[in-house]
């Protein structure tokens, strides 16, 4: 493809691409995100290609492999346009039927349609699915429209017009003002106003400046940035270009973790394509603006998601945070002014420039504007990536989008913001998902992880899990984080094993407060949140572990015993067969019992029993 030297060239190219696409009568959109790939999407893609070739329809049907659609648990996902027909759990075996019936004859394959687990209704189109309907998908919706490895797709939906508009019409100061007015705040966890960061970086002395995209997402259960980078890398690139122009940077970096191979591949392809078109390099679109982007792969340390540690890692040093008495906008990468933003933050930038600050500010609530992508996981019926307007109550996310409890047990809590966030109880579900409300309640939006937990979850165990994670991932540089987390884990482990004493609750609180106030970096400062928030809202569970030596949820091994309820037991022998430790006695058609000395409390018998006869006390 020829290089683009002016904005008019870009517009011409866009029209040409749109024209070329008109020959296709139908489009098969298939999710090729990591979630769907795990559900054999690659085999489905190959099958479609073969089938289309066999039936001689390649010229009439466009197959588009896109990034993540969000509804990962239903993968592989397929949407057929026009008609918006939505198929889920698509397997390679289904392809022949789909092509023959739906594509050729316009008939719907009933068995592949989605059945709503709440109402039990079979739903034909994607737009009607409650999971999607209750969302406000702006960023994620674009994933469906483009093949991430095709810059043409991105240009066809209006891509790179924001940078064109910026370079031709808007002054650098106005760009920053626009971002400031929009109220965009950092999506990576801190929630710092993006416009102010840019303004400070622009005013910082020095000619050499950098922009960095932080794609080192490491929260357990969260994959928002991954999906954006995998599904729409050009959007992130365009955001970075606008930011670089506004602050006066010539070089950008995308720091992406190596455990995201698809994201690494897609962003590399995107950078290469943009360079080939002249959208990266010298004198972009005929302007005086020159900018290039390099990709750096992270080694998978959680702490490298912290801005100063990330920059140290980029410089080739050990990824450890440094004190931020001088901010990175003044002295960042190689001690030069640096603007670091999260993937989702960068992805929001082009549309703000395109549609204006007021368009963006119209969505959301005071202090938190726009939409936020959340990774909804845990004990809900529908899990996946969810994009909602800021300020949407938690209960809307959990019950309307998530469809409520998955296993029939009542939902007890939701954990937001990953290891730096906290657990909020069900009676706080009226809280809106925005930066300030959640922070006030002792949790945070964070990067957007949202783990729903039902009654079968022990909150002491949850605190223990996150402390274990943080202990493993702490860099170990400063005392409060290294030793503080270690001691907190020691105490929580003691409590979960029934060896706790009641004074330790206040010790935990004091230690948590110390870590929060004195740790070196942002990750250390928030490390105590899982403990502190569970202590605030689920103190009774801690007390029961300590005083009654009981785990109400039946999770903590040392405090539970498995018993067979002889009234419910039908003496079928399934549990006996399943027990790996030979701890169940009794012949078929005879009374079964668990030998407590031999029982390792693995819970296999309980999951095997069809009559709910195995009880935990």
């Amino acid at each position, binding site marked *: 493809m020829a290089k683009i030297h002016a904005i008019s060239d870009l517009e011409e190219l866009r029209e040409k691409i749109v024209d070329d696409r008109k020959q296709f009568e139908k489009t098969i959109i298939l999710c090729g995100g990591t979630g769907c790939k795990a559900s054999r999407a690659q085999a489905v893609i190959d099958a479609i290609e073969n089938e289309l070739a066999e039936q001689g329809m390649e010229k009439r049907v466009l197959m588009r492999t896109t990034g993540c659609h969000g509804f990962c648990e239903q993968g592989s996902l397929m949407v057929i346009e026009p008609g918006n027909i939505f198929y889920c759990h698509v397997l390679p075996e289904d392809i022949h039927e789909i092509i023959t019936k739906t594509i050729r004859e316009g008939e719907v394959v009933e068995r592949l349609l989605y059945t709503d687990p709440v109402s039990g209704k079979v739903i034909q189109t994607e737009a009607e699915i409650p999971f999607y309907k209750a969302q406000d998908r702006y960023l994620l919706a674009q994933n469906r429209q483009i093949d991430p490895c095709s810059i043409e797709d991105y240009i066809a939906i209006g891509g790179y017009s924001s940078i064109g508009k910026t370079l031709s019409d808007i002054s650098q100061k106005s760009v920053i003002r626009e971002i400031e007015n929009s109220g965009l705040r950092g999506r990576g966890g801190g929630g710092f106003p993006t416009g102010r960061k840019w303004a400070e970086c622009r005013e910082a002395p020095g000619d050499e400046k950098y922009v960095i995209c932080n794609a080192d997402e490491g929260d357990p259960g969260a994959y928002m940035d991954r999906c954006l980078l995998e599904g729409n890398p050009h959007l992130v690139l365009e955001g970075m270009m606008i930011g670089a122009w506004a602050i006066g940077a010539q070089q950008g970096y995308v720091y992406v973790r190596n455990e995201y191979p698809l994201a690494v591949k897609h962003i590399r392809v995107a950078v290469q394509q943009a360079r080939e078109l002249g959208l990266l390099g010298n004198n972009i679109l005929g302007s005086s603006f020159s900018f290039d982007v390099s990709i750096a792969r992270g080694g998978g340390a959680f702490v490298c998601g912290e801005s100063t540690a990330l920059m140290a890692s980029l410089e080739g040093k*050990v990824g450890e945070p440094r004190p931020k008495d001088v901010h990175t906008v003044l002295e960042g990468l190689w001690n030069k002014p640096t603007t670091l933003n999260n993937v989702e933050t960068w992805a929001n930038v082009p549309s703000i420039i395109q549609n204006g600050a007021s368009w963006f500010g119209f969505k959301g609530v005071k202090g938190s504007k726009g939409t936020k992508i959340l990774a909804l996981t845990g004990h809900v019926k529908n899990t996946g990536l969810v994009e909602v307007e800021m300020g949407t109550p938690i209960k809307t996310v959990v019950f309307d989008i998530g469809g409520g409890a998955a296993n029939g047990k009542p939902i007890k809590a939701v954990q937001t913001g990953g290891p730096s966030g906290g657990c909020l109880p069900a009676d706080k579900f009226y809280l809106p998902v925005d930066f300030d409300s959640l922070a006030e309640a002792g949790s945070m939006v964070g990067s957007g992880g949202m783990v729903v937990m039902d009654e079968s979850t022990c909150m002491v165990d949850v605190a223990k899990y996150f402390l274990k994670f943080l202990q493993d991932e702490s*860099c170990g540089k400063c*005392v*409060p984080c290294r030793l503080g987390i270690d001691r907190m884990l020691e105490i929580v482990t003691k409590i979960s094993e029934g060896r706790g004493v009641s004074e330790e609750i206040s010790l935990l609180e004091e230690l948590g407060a110390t870590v929060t106030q004195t740790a070196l970096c942002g990750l250390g400062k928030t490390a105590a949140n899982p403990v502190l928030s569970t202590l605030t809202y689920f103190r009774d569970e801690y007390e029961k572990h300590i005083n009654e030596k009981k785990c109400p949820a039946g999770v903590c091994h040392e405090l539970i015993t498995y018993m067979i309820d002889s009234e419910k037991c039908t003496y079928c022998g399934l549990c006996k067969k399943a027990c790996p430790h030979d701890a169940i006695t009794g012949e078929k058609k005879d009374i079964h019992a668990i030998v407590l000395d031999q029982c390792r409390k693995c819970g296999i018998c309980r999951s095997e029993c069809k009559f709910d006869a195995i009880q935990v006390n």
Partner: protein
Amino acid sequence: MNQYVTISVDGMSIDVPKGLSVLDAALGHGICIPHLCRVPYISDIGACRLCIVEHVKNGRSKITTSCTLIAKEGMVILSNTEKIIKLRRNIAELLVTEAPNSRAVQDVAMRCGVKEVRYSFRNSDCILCGRCVRSCTGLFGEKAIGFVGRGKDRRVESPFEIKSQLCNECGRCIDLCPMTVVPCDGPMMPGEERLCGNCESKMSFAEEIPGFCIACDLGEGFQCERRLFLGP
């Protein structure tokens, strides 16, 4: 010609050369801010967090380490508030339970007011203050030792765990190590660890004037910088 800036520490206005850290400035003026990982003439990393102070700015106070905070004109620092004393005590408690067999750590814990410990003792050999690593890599430009691993696996090690050819056996790392001097009563055996508390009497008259250097011996184990100012 030196340029000076004026900062306020605990209400006292002091003039300090530009570019100096708040900790250095305070120590130079006889204000005692407990510290441990600080090594004179080597860049600080703020690892031990004992030298935390409140930096008051626009009516809001932010807790930060004074060793990494460079003095700027008009800075307002509080080093001895109730909050800071409590936090410092909690950090010192974490340290002393980790390494009771170091006189330096015992002394710092005493200075920070640790009277009882609420965790079990662990008797580690290293508190990862990084003084050795920084003197080797920073002061002498050699890289014979460094940090290896992360979190609880973090340790000081020579490259590939074999003695480095870069090491010229200057011994500075050993001089700086706060773990080399055992408590006055000798090393504590596993199970016998305790707060040493021998120097408690020395601190009693300092309670009247908290925050002022009384030229105590407590910093001997880690070469308190104030002692350098005062001479032997």
